[in-house]
């Protein structure tokens, strides 16, 4: 991939900043998301909480469904490929989606290697729990990062942990003398040039959103206050009792994350948020965030 293509792919993520990207499973939901003010939709067959409930192998969605959603909305359409699944990514690129999420929410196809994302023209977003993981994905060609959180739980605690972990590492790097950067790179499994970039700029070289467990407007505002540049909401919208209202409220809360008065207004009378799961009830082997190498 030439350098300008990669720059433009990073640029598209810049245009999404301050916005909300919503998981949708059909045309009707995609239209609700667009009307509520989503900056993009993630087209997938089952939202993460259903994947969690139903089990089995979670794969790329039916191209027909992705195609229909692309026809129905004017905002960017993203879709998920399994970690390391070269062919699924090629299929999604052939469908001309606007972004591919190489996602731990689907069952990994490769237990050692992620995609070489530089082999594609289409941009990729990848999940990360910490700075080292984020920089490995960027080193492979990701044009956007999202903290993983724990998808399908409606519990924001993991998203918070991952965002705080990443921000803490960035602050550490900013204060490190140059001679310590190589050891940081080694200990965190991160490419050295990207470590130097973060030390010099105090931020990732790509846009960083929050994902995994965001279920209310207040959750979205919390993640923005912790330094996220935008929000992914998966199950949180279409598993709530009034998806349209919840979607609109989360969009408003993300734009006005530092205005408690607006947050109070938009949090009113939303009905029930998705039920949610306490993290201690999820066995280690069923935690999606652990998927990623």
């Amino acid at each position: 991939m030439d350098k300008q293509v990669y720059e433009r792919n990073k640029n598209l993520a810049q245009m999404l900043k301050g916005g909300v990207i919503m998981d949708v499973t059909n045309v009707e939901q995609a239209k609700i998301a667009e009307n509520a003010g989503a900056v993009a939709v993630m087209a997938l067959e089952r939202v993460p909480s259903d994947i969690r409930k139903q089990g089995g192998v979670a794969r790329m969605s039916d191209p027909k469904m992705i195609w229909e959603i692309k026809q129905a909305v004017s905002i960017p359409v993203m879709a998920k490929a399994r970690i390391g699944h070269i062919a699924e990514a090629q299929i999604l690129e052939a469908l001309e989606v606007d972004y591919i999420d190489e996602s731990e929410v689907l069952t990994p196809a490769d237990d050692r290697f992620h995609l070489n994302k530089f082999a594609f023209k289409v941009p990729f977003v990848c999940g990360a729990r910490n700075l080292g993981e984020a920089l490995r994905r960027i080193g492979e060609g990701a044009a956007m990062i999202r903290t993983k959180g724990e998808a399908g739980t409606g519990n924001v605690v993991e998203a918070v942990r991952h965002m705080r972990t990443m921000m803490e590492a960035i602050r550490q790097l900013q204060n490190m003398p140059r001679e310590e950067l190589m050891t940081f790179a080694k200990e965190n499994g991160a490419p050295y040039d990207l470590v130097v970039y973060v030390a010099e700029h105090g931020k990732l070289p790509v846009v960083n959103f929050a994902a995994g467990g965001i279920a209310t407007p207040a959750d979205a505002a919390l993640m923005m206050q912790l330094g996220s540049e935008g929000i992914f909401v998966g199950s949180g919208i279409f598993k709530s009792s009034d998806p349209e209202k919840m979607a609109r409220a989360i969009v408003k809360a993300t734009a006005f994350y530092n205005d408690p008065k607006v947050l109070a207004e938009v949090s009113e009378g939303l009905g029930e948020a998705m039920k949610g799961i306490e993290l201690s009830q999820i066995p280690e082997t069923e935690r999606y965030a652990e998927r990623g190498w």
Partner: protein
Amino acid sequence: MTGKKTIGVLSFQGSVEEHLAALGRFPEVTALPVKTPEALNRVDALILPGGESTTISKLLSIFGLMEPLRQRILQGMPVWGTCAGMILLAKEVVGEQPHLGVMDIAVRRNAYGSQLDSFTANETIPAVLGDPIPLVFIRAPWVERAWGTAEPLLTLNGHIAAARQDNMLATAFHPELTDDLSVYRYFLQMIG
């Protein structure tokens, strides 16, 4: 230019920081993020950034900024829309309702296609600068038609990519994503 000018950037969503950073490179400019009618009252000019026009338009309506902004533009406040901002300004948007609906242009959203069709060009915009400047198009719109006093400033592959009408400037590309400040200089001249 007399004294310091305050230029706002509509800051609901999109390439807000990029525009604020570019404005920050001009010592004669105070850059101000704008989300409220109060902030709008304080600016001499406003930039509508790149982003998603449907999202920004909804937030303009919900937070009571659509009508005050439209009035300020109609009263002559200089305004510059980049990409999504161009769509907000247009009187006609193919296939949907207009948003601010103040500029005599008809625009087509995502006119070039998906992200795979985004592109970079180097072109001369005679009104702006005699030399070519880098132009970044991200899922860009184009102007299908301009009428009245709206004048095309750049035509690319048969489609208008930049236009000016009195106090209004619209570009389908994103100067905020490059280091080149020449379109900003042009906009500053519009403020006078």
